[in-house]
């Protein structure tokens, strides 16, 4: 017991040191008491002061807060669930420290079980459970950083990014997703903290995927992280955020903003596997700008959270740009995955493809909400959209709301969607070959997800399959 308390105190103390050296912040415990729930200009000012930010960033924050306060809540997607969010009851900055104080015993049983079943080591579990920010792969992280630095790649948390590369941040921050974009993007802009900042120099090919997993060991991931990735001319980068284990937090709201800038001939792939605990509202804005002959791919998996509203977007701004969005959503009991894809064709000879797969189980609800926009005088545009939904359980719900706005005639747009349950004849066939009904169902679900899983690095694919297996457990009454 005593050692536990000591450890906790050490954690807190080390955090204090961290802030003291890095941010000129001297009194974390005191601050913790001062940090009030709710958001207002004082809180924003405090965040900005503590980070010792340049004035222009503070101004952006304050403006964004006004926008947040003036914008109404979305009256679409799931207004009933959204109404549950109590903005006044949320800690907008101090939450991570509070998390540090939590003990592993407070982490819900089902999350611990998932860790066990996924076979994640104890230390990592604690980290992912939001309990401790320390663990042994720190070394790995550092060696990886050195390797990247040699190539000139900048891979930092967003706060450090702002300190070390203020010019680049100033140029691109909010250029893809302005605070005006929507209520939650405005909130994020006002109170953002953490997230990744990546700059890949011209012609550099980052051969290993960059993973937030390594970065967040050193820097705690906030509820309002802000990520900015810039791929300079002819460079290639693959970024992976999140992990297949559930991220546990007592906070009710996670609202990130992710901006990607793919300059000429570059390639960015951004892979997310979101597996928040089932009490989280996950309201995320993700958008990419793709310039001449650049390619952007969003690979987006949503398994966790209570309500997710996330519609990754690619703006194809110059000729030859390509966009691809591949998304899967799994809505289990009491979950609503409101996800989708947006493609904005603002240049000729651009092409895009959207593949969306969703599974609704028990009383889960998954919605596809998409937009395809082709501006005037854009010859040579090609678009295809495919949505598949699988329903498991009598109360499962699936919605499809695709929107296609086409202002040019020489363009071929195709959209297709299918909704069905697991086909009886497939089950029958597999069972006749000696599989149990559970196994047969799992096999069919895995097959359904395959176009997604095959795009993941092997270890993620394996874990995702295991995760689906867990979600599918006991799917037959």
């Amino acid at each position, binding site marked *: 017991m005593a050692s536990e308390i000591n450890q906790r105190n050490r954690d807190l103390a080390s955090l204090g040191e961290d802030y003291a050296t890095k941010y000129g912040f001297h009194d974390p415990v005191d601050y913790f008491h001062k940090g009030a729930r709710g958001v207002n200009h004082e809180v924003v000012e405090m965040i900005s002061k503590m980070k010792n930010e340049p004035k222009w960033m503070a101004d952006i924050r304050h403006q964004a807060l006004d926008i947040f306060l003036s914008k109404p809540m979305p*009256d*679409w997607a799931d207004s009933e669930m959204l109404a549950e969010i109590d903005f006044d009851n949320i800690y907008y900055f101090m939450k991570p420290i509070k998390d540090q104080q939590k003990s592993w015993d407070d982490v819900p049983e089902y999350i611990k079980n998932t860790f066990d079943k996924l076979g994640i080591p104890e230390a990592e579990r604690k980290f992912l459970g939001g309990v401790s920010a320390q663990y042994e792969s720190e070394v790995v992280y550092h060696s990886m950083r050195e390797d990247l630095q040699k190539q000139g790649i900048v891979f930092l948390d967003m706060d450090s990014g702002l300190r070390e590369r203020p010019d680049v941040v100033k140029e691109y921050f909010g250029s893809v997703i302005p605070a005006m974009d929507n209520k939650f993007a405005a909130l994020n802009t006002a109170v953002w903290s953490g997230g990744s900042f990546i700059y890949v120099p011209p012609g550099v090919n980052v051969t290993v995927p960059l993973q937030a997993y390594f970065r967040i060991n050193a820097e705690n991931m906030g509820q309002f992280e802000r990520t900015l990735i810039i791929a300079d001319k002819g460079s290639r980068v693959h970024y992976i955020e999140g992990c297949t284990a559930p991220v546990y937090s007592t906070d009710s709201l996670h609202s990130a903003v992710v901006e990607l800038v793919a300059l000429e001939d570059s390639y960015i792939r951004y892979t997310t596997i979101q597996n928040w605990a089932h009490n989280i509202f996950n309201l995320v804005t993700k958008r990419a700008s793709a310039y001449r002959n650049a390619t952007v791919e969003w690979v987006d998996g949503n398994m966790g959270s209570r309500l997710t509203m996330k519609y990754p977007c690619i703006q194809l701004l110059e000729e030859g740009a390509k966009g691809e969005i591949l998304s899967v959503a799994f809505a289990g009991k009491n979950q609503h995955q409101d996800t989708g894809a947006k493609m904005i064709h603002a240049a000729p000879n651009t092409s895009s493809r959207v593949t969306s797969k969703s599974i*609704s189980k028990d009383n889960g609800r998954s919605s596809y909400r998409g937009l395809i926009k082709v501006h*005037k*005088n854009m010859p040579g545009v090609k678009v295809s959209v495919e949505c598949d*939904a699988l*329903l*498991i*359980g*009598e*109360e*499962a*719900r*699936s*919605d*499809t*709301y*695709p*929107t*296609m*706005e*086409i*202002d*040019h*005639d*020489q*363009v*071929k*747009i*195709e*959209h*297709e*969607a*299918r*909704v*069905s*349950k697991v086909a009886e004849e497939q089950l029958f066939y597999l069972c006749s070959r000696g599989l149990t009904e559970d196994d047969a169902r799992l096999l069919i679900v895995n097959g359904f997800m395959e176009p997604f899983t095959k795009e993941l690095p092997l270890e993620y694919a394996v874990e995702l399959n295991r995760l689906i297996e867990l979600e599918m457990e006991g799917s037959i009454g």
Partner: protein
Amino acid sequence: MSNKTDTKNSTSDFSIPDLAPELLRGPNWLRDIRKKSRETFNNAPVPRRGLHLWRYTDPGKFLIDRERVLDTDYGENFNAVEKIVQNHLRQGNLSGVVTDLAGRRIDFFGTENLVAQGVTVLRLSEAIEQHPELVERYLYQLVNSATGKFEAMNGALWNDGIFVYVPDGVTVEQPLHLLRESGLGGSVQYPRLLVVVGKNAELTLVDEYGGGSTDRDAVASYANSAVEIFGLEDSRISYVCLQRQASGMNSYLTHRARIERGARMLTMPLAFGGALAKQNFGVQLNGRGAESVMRGLLFGSGHQQGDNHTLHWHAAGETVSSIDFKVVLRERARSAYTGLIRIEKDARTCEAYQENRNLLLSRDARARTIPELEILNEDVRCSHGATIGPIDPNSVFYLQSRGIRLADAVRMIVSGFVMTTLTGLPENLRARINDFVSQRLEQE
């Protein structure tokens, strides 16, 4: 004054004043509903732009100034109607024509045989007196002030309408043709139709909307129509809604049908005219084995704007629906299509299909499509698809290489595109629609 309605003008008052005495005649229940509809309309906010069904159309276009909303002066625009009626009757194959002038004057031609079969074809005002229970049971059940602001507007203001009742077991062999003509520029009309088709009965209805101002730059004519159709058990209904309004006309139409166990319904929205036409077609499948098919066509040219919605609402299990909605656009025409399939939790073992194909014949044409699904149980088979694109240049090239002129090649391809939609229509009606298509392809 152009035909634009300026909703931002703060001096404009779009409320409905106290209802005129002739609208308050009839039984108490009707009077109450009219008054309530008026209140609902006056209190309901104008639908917000950006909100779902209003994303592409300005609701202000369907608001009428308080001074004008009760206007009964619809002008003399009906000289041609008599000729059209005679033409229809001469071509035969009809079980009668009903003319509806500006939702106010309703006349019947050649419907004697129908009446002899026991079919009731009456003015709504007469039906309320002669069949009070029947009308009370069905009128306002599907389109009412709960449906929306503009449905409340019709509910308060319809002057007279058409009532058709086909008793159980009666098959009406030939189509009944309804001819609804709107008045000249500035006129306002609120046509209403109530159809009840009894158990195991059969009816084909052609509901043709025409007339209106021909002057795009004058004040527009305005029509706000409501259609309610009930198909009782095992009934078979074909409903063709042919819209060929003149170019200075803004129209709003809400159609709702409810079909019971084993009933089959074919709904065909065919839209060619008007400056702005917003139409909403919905079928509720309310009993096991009910089947609904919709085949729609919008042909737009010039500056025409079409905004169509379809709804297939599976409220009962073992029901089947399909929608095929085609759009052809020329010049600067615009189309928005939103189609929703909703399958309720208890509606198990349903099948629903939806297809929206858009053919763009010019650079300036614009199409929007939102095919939507809301599926609340697992035991379904559902799919939808949408395409937007130009004529396949390979097809044109092939036809040209066979010596066919470009214009003819385009006409052939468009005819082929719409042909599948038109199959099943009575022969002379199909010929008329084909003529509409060719005329619109040729006009400059």
